[in-house]
């Protein structure tokens, strides 16, 4: 391939792909404060915002409130909603082509790492650090500190780097991972929720025996969400980590192999025979239909379990903290839906206004009441209306309270190839379930994962 041809292609490509580069710096023309010093919500009057949303109770609640935002600010909002998988595919296409037709999108800490490293996300500290851009009543201290910390990263791979650096997104929902189980089966079998993972297998077995039905269900697809919920929660309680400080992959450490064996054996012996295809909604539905004894997964699925229109097990579900590991430590992973700003957006101030409004106490309360669980502001979690809702789910509130306040944190090590690493890890679990030796499968996965990360960070 001769050089001039190469140069031509590069020109064509750079033209195509760089249309849309160059984000506006905060325009000084925008008067975010009135001459009297009050916060000016109408600073960007007349502009239009493009928002990409994932199909979620939060979204369903948010779009009902958007007309209020339009009235308050004079900004017109155009939103697109897609189901989760399609949403992320479309999002990646938009972000990677530096689209100027996307301002705000929904994301989460783990997924954001890849986007942040690629420079697709706007750092929010420029706004947060400037008192002018923060309304007095915003109350940023109202957010759970661990959630804001989960969204800070200095782009350097390594656990100690989470919580440092810029804030990249504002959380609007949080979920931790607990064990939801059938208390009627447990009573029948005369067992109580396992306090330690050494009782985990026996618990599943007894539930299985009690009703001659399967004792446990869990996610099983060969993708990162399979690791993200119950699995990595137990993994962390065992004191294991995905990467150590030198970014060596440790998913095959002796302790890690021990836990993985336990997890998979429990599922293999007492779980669904089509486990490799079980998605989060399969698990939720099958538990709600009454076929399984426990589902170690998202806490807020309780809303479905206790809904007579969707569940056959209303009132028969108990909620327990995840068990402790050998050193008697309890850890839970968390996931948090957040709002972020596209770094290629030409309307950053308007986007910031939307962010402020959508994450204000009133808005988050409104969405929480309409089903967006769990809230990310302490005051919303403590609000009587929210209390009312969670009190209907017996045993839910105490467990989640403890988890949120003491045990839940992002257990993954931040690095840009999160999805690739998570997918490869999940595939190893599938192989072990299908009969491969756990040590071998995890050794191979660890080696490949280190290659993946090395490739991602080459240059």
């Amino acid at each position, binding site marked *: 391939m001769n050089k001039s041809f190469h140069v031509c292609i590069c020109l064509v490509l750079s033209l*195509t*792909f760089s*249309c849309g580069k160059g984000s506006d710096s905060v325009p000084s023309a925008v008067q975010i404060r009135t001459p009297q010093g009050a916060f000016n919500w109408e600073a960007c009057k007349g502009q239009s915002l493009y928002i990409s949303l*994932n*199909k*979620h*109770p939060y979204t*369903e609640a948010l779009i009902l409130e958007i007309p209020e935002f339009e009235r308050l600010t004079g900004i017109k909002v155009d939103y*697109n*909603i*897609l*189901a*989760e*998988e*399609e949403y992320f*595919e*479309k999002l990646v*296409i938009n972000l*990677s*082509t530096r*689209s100027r*037709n996307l301002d705000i999108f929904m994301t989460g800490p783990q997924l954001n790492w890849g986007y942040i490293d690629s420079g697709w996300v706007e750092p929010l500290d420029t706004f947060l650090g400037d008192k002018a851009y923060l309304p007095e009543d915003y109350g940023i201290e109202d957010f759970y500190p661990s959630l804001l910390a989960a969204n800070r990263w200095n782009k350097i791979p390594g656990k100690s780097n989470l919580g440092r650096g810029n804030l990249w997104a504002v959380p609007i929902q949080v979920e931790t991972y607990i064990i939801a189980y059938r208390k009627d089966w447990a009573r029948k079998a005369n067992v109580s929720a396992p306090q330690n993972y050494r009782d985990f297998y026996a618990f599943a077995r007894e539930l299985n025996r009690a009703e001659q039905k399967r004792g446990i269900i869990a996610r099983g697809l060969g993708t990162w969400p399979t690791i993200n919920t119950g699995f990595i929660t137990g993994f962390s309680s065992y004191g294991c980590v995905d990467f150590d400080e030198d970014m060596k992959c440790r998913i095959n450490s002796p302790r890690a192999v021990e836990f993985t064996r336990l997890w998979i054996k429990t599922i293999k012996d007492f779980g669904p025979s089509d486990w490799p295809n079980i998605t989060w*909604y399969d698990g*939720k*539905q*099958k538990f*709600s*239909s*009454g*076929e399984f004894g426990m589902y170690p997964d998202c806490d807020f699925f309780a*809303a*479905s379990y206790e*809904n007579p*229109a*969707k*569940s*056959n097990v209303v009132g028969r579900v108990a909620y327990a903290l995840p068990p402790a590991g050998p050193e008697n430590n309890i850890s839970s992973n968390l996931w948090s839906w957040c709002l972020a700003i596209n770094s290629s957006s030409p309307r950053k101030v308007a986007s910031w206004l939307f962010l402020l409004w959508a994450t204000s106490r009133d808005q988050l309360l409104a969405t929480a009441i*309409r*089903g967006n669980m769990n809230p990310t502001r302490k005051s919303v979690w403590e609000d009587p209306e929210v209390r009312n809702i969670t009190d209907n789910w017996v045993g839910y509130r105490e467990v989640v309270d403890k988890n949120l306040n003491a045990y839940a944190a992002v257990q993954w090590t931040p690095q840009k190839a999160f999805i690739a690493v998570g997918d490869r890890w999940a595939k190893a679990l599938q192989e072990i379930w299908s009969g491969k030796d756990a040590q071998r499968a995890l050794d191979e996965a660890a080696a490949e994962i280190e290659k993946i990360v090395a490739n991602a960070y080459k240059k």
Partner: protein
Amino acid sequence: MKNRPRQNAKDTRKKVLIYSGIVLFLIFALFPIFWIFLMSLKTDKEIIASIPKFFFRPTLENYEAILFGLKAAGTETSRPDFILYFKNSLIITSGAVIVSLLVGVPAAYALARFKFKFKEDIAFTFLSFRFAPEIAVIIPIFVIYRSLGLYNTYIGMILVYQLITLPLIVWIMRGYFEDIPDSIEQAARLDGYSWFSIFRKISLPLVKPGLASTAILSFIFAWNNFIFGLVLGAKETFPVTVGTLGFISYESVLWGQMAAASMVTILPEIIIAFFIQKYLVRGLSLGAVRG
């Protein structure tokens, strides 16, 4: 005369075999669709029940939900986007097929009838448009569309759907055109008719059955496409396939509504196929022409 009774027995045996074969085929083809139809009449709870239910009280709530956007119990709200997506599919798919027919049928005719330089290369080029793996081309097409302003437009979608419909129409119609005996057209040429009028008045009518089935097939393939609609469109132009996947929401999979949506989705295809079916009977007369 003495063969009659044996002949009748043979005929009946043959008929029985044929009928049983057809019934077997139909069972295999239709049972899943029947099951999906049942799903569309069940509540979500009944669908996920541990033992498959054949008997239940049917409900129309799923159809109501997708057509009129009734608020389902719980936190799920269905907005009536489904009708919009349905309309989009109708416009885009019909448009794509019509364009492909207008442009592809003459091309097929030329490939069947004429000898000209690069003929087989051009024919193969048409075919090669279908080779493109979607994953490979979707991002470049997305970028082009954005810069040309074709993103989220009906025209853009109709254009990209040509990748699906055009090769099909050109190659299958080519076969049907080649089937027409040369003699008929030679006769008309000798009578002084131009190529265009032969094409219009003689060749086209003769291939109507093939044209019908090809049109149906390309309509179906275009209607069923998912990836182009997802990536190159937004809520104004999403086809019904993208909409159907939207029933996998955060709360749960709304199987009942998804099944109802699938049933409604098939409807235009069935209607079109039914009307065009009549033409397939005419196949007999085509055979007669080749006396």
